[in-house]
């Protein structure tokens, strides 16, 4: 009886922690799609960064290999690059003239 209780508790603990892990790792597929959308927007504005497409490709490969956590991490990095490059584009379009060096 005692052993059964311990086994059940251990099983519950593993299930709960697995649930936590799933909750902590965002949906890699959705992140990859968001990153690709941001990359395309940056490209259309002429401000795509050098490594964003490569990060997205790595995330896709990791997802295809079943490494969801790794895929999520890579896709998050790509998404951050995509968002920052879009922000850079908007900022530069507004303010590039202020960057002309003055004597």
């Amino acid at each position: 009886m005692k052993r059964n209780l311990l086994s059940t508790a251990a099983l519950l603990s593993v299930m709960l922690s697995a649930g936590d892990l799933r909750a902590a790792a965002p949906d890699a597929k959705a992140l990859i799609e968001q990153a690709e959308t941001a990359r395309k927007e940056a490209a259309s504005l002429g401000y795509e960064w050098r490594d964003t497409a490569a990060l997205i490709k790595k995330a896709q490969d990791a997802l295809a290999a079943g490494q969801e956590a790794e895929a999520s991490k890579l896709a998050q990095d790509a998404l951050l690059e995509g968002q920052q490059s879009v922000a850079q584009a908007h900022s530069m379009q507004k303010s590039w003239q202020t960057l002309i060096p003055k004597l």
Partner: protein
Amino acid sequence: MKKKVRNRFFAPLLVLLMLLATVRTEAVDYQAKVQADIKAFRDYFAAQFPDVPFADYANGVYAIDADSRQQWLEMEEFPPYALSVEDGKALFEKPFANGKTYGSCFPNGGAVRHNYPYFDEKRGTVVTLEMAINECRVANGEKSLACKGGDIAKISAYMAFISRGNPVDVKVASEGAYKAYMKGKEFFYAKHGKLNMSCAGCHMEFAGKRLRAEILSPALGHTTHFPVYRSKWGEIGTLHKRYGGCTNDTGANAFAPQSEEYRNLEFFETVMSNGLIFNGPASRK
């Protein structure tokens, strides 16, 4: 009475018509706008490097660093681009499959480097020398060449060589040309890439300072001496190959050679070098 009414009506109408005619004929002087930019650009470098004569900016970084200049002058005794110029001459004169040569597209035996880049009003776009070389090929039933190095850089080097000494005098004479110029200008001053760097940041504000082992060249005169034999490349390459390398170094995605972005940038940079001479091809580290 009738005459008075007619005068009262026609006099203001005449004035109005004259005003409208004035407005219609008062064209924007784009060249004057650009001239102000050229002056500010030159003044900036004159203040940074007061001992450098204006004409010397055609020599790039060797205008501002005595040690590098000495090494370059020694290298110029047996210029590493000489073989490329010879190859370019042979390619220029070699007939296409239809029997014609590049000479059918380029007058004066190809000594027309100084006519590029220019804004083509009909097509509404900037035309560079390398673009014109490829268009000549296509018009004669040949395939386009890759635009970073190889044969196109050799042909361009030959054409630059036989055009040496001609002044840079790029015109910005229309609204379309001015728009292309402004796009190139924005590209030059705006920050790009993960490192948030601009052409102007390195080649104006930090010109003459070191970036690792290299001394950053001044932007004034950047386009006069291309294509260049670059020791790092081990071959002759085009201006747009260099643009791609620079863009990549800022952490931005490089544009394709002969893309609209790089042609506009070349247009802007060459306008800024008006008054210098074309002296390509050249050798660089």
